[in-house]
């Protein structure tokens, strides 16, 4: 799939999102539920702000020492008999994975949820080489069945679909004849998937966090599918973004708690799996062969820059679940598999500005995201930093805007100009004013007044009144 999804133009994608009332009500409902759950889980833990501080500190420390921990992780995986491949690019990651598939003569791969495999377009790469890929996460399974509908959320990929739509997909693609009760549909999916698990040659998982001190990987799920993916097939490949790492199990404990509470409002999810290397003597299950693919794909370019905090992300989606922009336009409008505030920050960094130049502006900077983030990433500030880059380095803003901002700088730093300009405002707008309001503004006011009325500037500015009044005198 790659990081880019959907139509090319941002405006078209937004319009499509805004027009999709099914999607919007599904999203609003889910957001409400997830928000309430998260707040409750945070309260239950108590002292949430201190936990966030700790989460931030752990992520900060890990990113500052990432090379050390990656080295430690690689050594420990190797010690336990696993193979580690460090992939600089998406292509290199795919080549390596394909090579393993070829060596094993694998015809079928079963997957648990992983955003990074979406990012590198792994499924297509494998399918192009004649290997069948089955998604076992329920949400991903639905999307795959629905002609590869892209994910619209990083935790709940099929969030944009409601029950009835899912039933229709099952009916049309798999001959499902039952109702749209979630339990019923889940049972159906399970039955279908059970056979796939048994017949798959390779299991591919993502990785919530790798633990450097022991060379382990951890998987956080509610469906238990990741356990089957890592227990049944003879070969396991785990693909991780290079920043998804913690020093020790102690930090893992903190981050998993923050993740589960922030993502789904649970103390812990139903299954939290820690895996270390391939099956050893005496183990009853697990793969004979274990490969860890660590994906860079642009991440090291973010290290050491003003955007480094974007790498602190633990992919909990709390920022997405509180974002009012996301709630109206939905995930697909972002044109990236990483939607919402974190997507608007991350996508231009991992992809390129040119293709994503609107994303940093798709935010009112309300900072709901920053407030929700369990590891305190200042998301709205990073969005402003993107805008600054677009202005200063990419020089991609329109000439009229650059001119307006230059004029603003001038006027707002020169009292006499400000005085003149603000005084003239009332006069200039008086032809458009009716009953103290402007409903059809000229030129630059048009985009505002197309949607809302504008109060007409008062004949007397505040400062005029102030200068005229007697000291301490009241006006009424």
């Amino acid at each position, binding site marked *: 799939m790659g990081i880019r999804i959907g139509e090319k133009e941002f405006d078209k994608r937004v319009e499509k999102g805004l027009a999709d009332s099914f999607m919007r009500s599904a999203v609003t409902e889910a957001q409400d539920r997830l928000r309430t759950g998260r707040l409750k889980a945070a309260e239950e833990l108590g002292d949430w702000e201190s936990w966030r501080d700790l989460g931030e500190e752990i992520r900060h420390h890990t990113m500052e020492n990432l090379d050390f921990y990656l080295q430690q992780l690689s050594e420990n995986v190797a010690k336990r008999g696993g193979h580690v491949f460090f992939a600089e690019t998406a292509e290199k990651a795919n080549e390596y994975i394909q090579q393993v598939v070829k060596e094993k003569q694998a015809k079928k791969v079963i997957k648990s949820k992983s955003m990074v495999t979406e990012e590198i377009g792994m499924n297509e790469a494998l399918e192009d080489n004649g290997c069948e890929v089955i998604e076992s996460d329920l949400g991903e399974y639905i999307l795959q069945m629905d002609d590869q509908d892209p994910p619209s959320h990083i935790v709940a990929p099929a969030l944009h679909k409601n029950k009835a739509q899912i039933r229709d997909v099952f009916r049309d693609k798999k001959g499902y004849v039952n109702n749209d009760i979630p339990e019923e549909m889940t049972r159906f999916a399970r039955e279908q998937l059970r056979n796939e698990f048994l017949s798959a040659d390779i299991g591919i998982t993502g990785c919530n966090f790798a633990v450097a001190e022991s060379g382990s990987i951890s998987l956080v799920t509610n469906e238990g599918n990741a356990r089957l993916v890592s227990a049944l097939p003879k070969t396991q490949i785990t693909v991780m973004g290079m920043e998804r790492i913690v020093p020790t199990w102690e930090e893992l404990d903190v981050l998993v708690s923050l993740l589960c509470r922030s993502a789904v409002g649970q103390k812990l999810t139903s299954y939290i799996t820690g895996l270390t290397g391939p099956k050893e003597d005496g183990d009853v299950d697990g793969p004979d062969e274990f490969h860890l693919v660590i994906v860079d794909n642009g991440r090291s370019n973010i290290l050491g820059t003003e955007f480094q905090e974007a790498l602190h992300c633990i992919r909990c989606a709390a920022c997405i679940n509180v974002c009012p922009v996301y709630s109206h336009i939905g995930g697909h409008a972002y044109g990236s598999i990483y939607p919402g505030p974190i997507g608007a920050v991350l996508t231009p960094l991992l992809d390129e500005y040119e293709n994503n130049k609107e994303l940093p502006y798709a935010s*009112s900077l309300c900072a709901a995201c920053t407030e929700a983030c369990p590891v305190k990433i200042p998301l709205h500030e990073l969005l402003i930093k993107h805008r600054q880059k*677009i202005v200063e380095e990419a020089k991609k803003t329109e000439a009229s805007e650059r001119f307006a901002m230059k004029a603003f700088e001038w006027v707002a730093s020169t009292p006499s100009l400000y005085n003149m300009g603000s005084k003239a405002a009332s006069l200039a707008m008086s032809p458009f004013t009716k009953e103290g309001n402007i409903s059809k503004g000229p030129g630059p006011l048009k985009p505002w007044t197309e949607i809302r009325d504008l109060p007409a500037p008062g004949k007397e500015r*505040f400062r005029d009144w102030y200068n005229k009044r007697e000291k301490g005198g009241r006006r009424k």
Partner: protein
Amino acid sequence: MKVSLFVTCLTDIFYPEVGKDTVELLERLGCEVDFPESQTCCGQPAFNSGYHKESIKVAKHMVKTFEGSDYVVTPSGSCAAMLKEYEKLLADDQAWQEKARALGEKTYELTEFLVDVLNEEDVGAAFHAKATYHTSCHMTRLLGVKDAPVKLLSKVEGLDLTSLPHGYDCCGFGGTFSVKMALISEQMADAKVKHIEETDADVLIGADAGCLMNIGGRLRRKGKPVKVMHIAQVLNRKEKR
């Protein structure tokens, strides 16, 4: 207590009454209010759009304007937060950064100043109306002022205050966002309008001219009779039933 008013450009030009109420309210509570005349705008339009070079010049001008003030009080959480941002914005020049920090430290949003500095919750206001209060994002999240407005409003005689459902959601203003992403902004404003209507309130009270301009403008466009007021207007009101 000597207080310098930073009235903000929107209030100066579009909502002069809010400025007047702010002055009268502060004076009524014993403050000596002055208005440094060279003040302009806090620079948010440029800063939030990524034009940081342009906003630096504005920031320096504002720092100079308020250099002699003991307290700077402003009827806008968003602009107060911007004045506090100068310290980071001017970080490349230590002398300026110091001055910016000093400005940030003495800057208060109006309700924050009333409650935290003057220790006043009951300002002796009376206003008989059914109202709801819109919490502005920058005021609550960037500035951290959450309780002060509600404390003040709860003491207003006759005011029947209902909480606004989904109050935590942004109204869709966001400065240039409101015109750059007009379609999305419209939907956000409509959601806000819908929630305001659910409260049955006759008056929407806010503490930031930007949000009020956006919500008020959308309410008017949709022909809704809800009246929009700044909190300073409510707190400076004394009316007999």
